[in-house]
């Protein structure tokens, strides 16, 4: 029997989830449009004073990113659970955390990367300078993978429960707060003309922590949920 290569299985799971997302593009686009609409509502509903817009911009974009990422969390494991593929995945002969990492990576590419790409364009509505837009993008690049990783723990824990979507939000949103704070502070610092480097470094540190620990926590939660 051939020795199962961990790398090839990782590729398979990422390929599979990307393919599934491609076949259900509407779901992906709805997340993106949700993000764009929520962010655009603020400049429309508050006064057009540039100073005010500038000062609320980091918070608004970040909160919208958190909410948008909640939307796609429900799909992370629920569909696989419903059609029995999750059982099959749990019974594959390689460490579960790698599968989880693969799924989270695919989820990030599908639902968060479009947000990161579109955020600087939305930032223009708030009159942010070019430099600040760059910092905004960078903070999202560092922060959104953490959202996916932490969210996967919540999604795994609430798997198979009724009204799991609401429960995921209650579980996961408080855990998102550090990311929100550092992300928004980095953009704030850039608007104020100081260096955002310390906040971005902290975001990076949170990302490393999440990459190391979240897949383990998610695998453990999945095992509990399936029992």
């Amino acid at each position, binding site marked *: 029997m051939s020795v199962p290569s961990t790398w090839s299985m990782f590729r398979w799971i990422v390929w599979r989830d990307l393919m599934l997302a491609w076949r259900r593009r509407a779901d992906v686009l709805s997340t993106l449009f949700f993000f764009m609409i929520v962010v655009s509502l603020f400049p429309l509903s508050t006064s057009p004073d540039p100073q005010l817009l500038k000062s609320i911009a980091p918070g608004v974009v970040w909160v919208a990113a958190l909410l948008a990422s909640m939307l796609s969390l429900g799909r992370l494991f629920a569909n696989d659970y419903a059609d*029995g593929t999750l059982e099959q995945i749990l*019974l594959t*002969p390689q460490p579960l955390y790698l599968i989880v990492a693969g799924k989270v990576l695919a989820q990030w590419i599908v639902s968060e990367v479009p947000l990161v790409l579109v955020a600087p364009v939305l930032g223009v509505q708030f009159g942010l300078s070019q430099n600040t837009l760059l910092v905004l993008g960078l903070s999202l690049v560092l922060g959104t993978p953490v959202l996916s990783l932490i969210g996967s723990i919540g999604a795994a824990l609430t798997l198979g429960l009724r009204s799991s979507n609401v429960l995921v939000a209650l579980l996961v949103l408080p855990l998102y707060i550090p990311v929100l704070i550092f992300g928004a502070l980095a953009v704030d610092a850039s608007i104020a003309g100081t260096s955002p480097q310390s906040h971005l470094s902290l975001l990076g540190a949170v990302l490393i922590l999440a990459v190391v620990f979240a897949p383990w926590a998610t695998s453990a939660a999945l095992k509990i949920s399936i029992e």
Partner: protein
Amino acid sequence: MICGLLEPAEGDIRWQRKNIRSLSEDYFSQLTYLGHRNGVKDELTAIENLRCASGLSGIELSHEAAMSALRELGLEGRELLPARSLSEGQRRRLALARLKVSQTALWVLDEILTSLDRAATSLIQTILATHITNGGIALVATHQELDLSAGSSQRIQLSL
């Protein structure tokens, strides 16, 4: 429970004298499980489903090998259709195609004959017989009669 997803209330389940809970991945590489849910993705085509499921269990399956496995299970001409458009019996056959390409020693099959016609049932019997002759183990739970003449088989009747 035998798949190691549930913990037994008491005692433990051993595979080659080792508790399966501590073996985990080594044990899973010997195991193929088919439950009453097919484990078939609606959005993927039949062949993608088979190659992906097989790839995840550690066997890289070439396009041709997957095609011929599907053909043998009577899914000829439907290889490139998304699983959503297959009938219940055809989805079942697609799930069973995984057995055809699996290289594991232990098969745990739960209600495999549901929504299959007689031709498919006899096909399953042949597949099972080949597996057993090759020294494999199959644990089958079923409501229908399953005729297994090859090798040694043990029938446990559970009446409620």
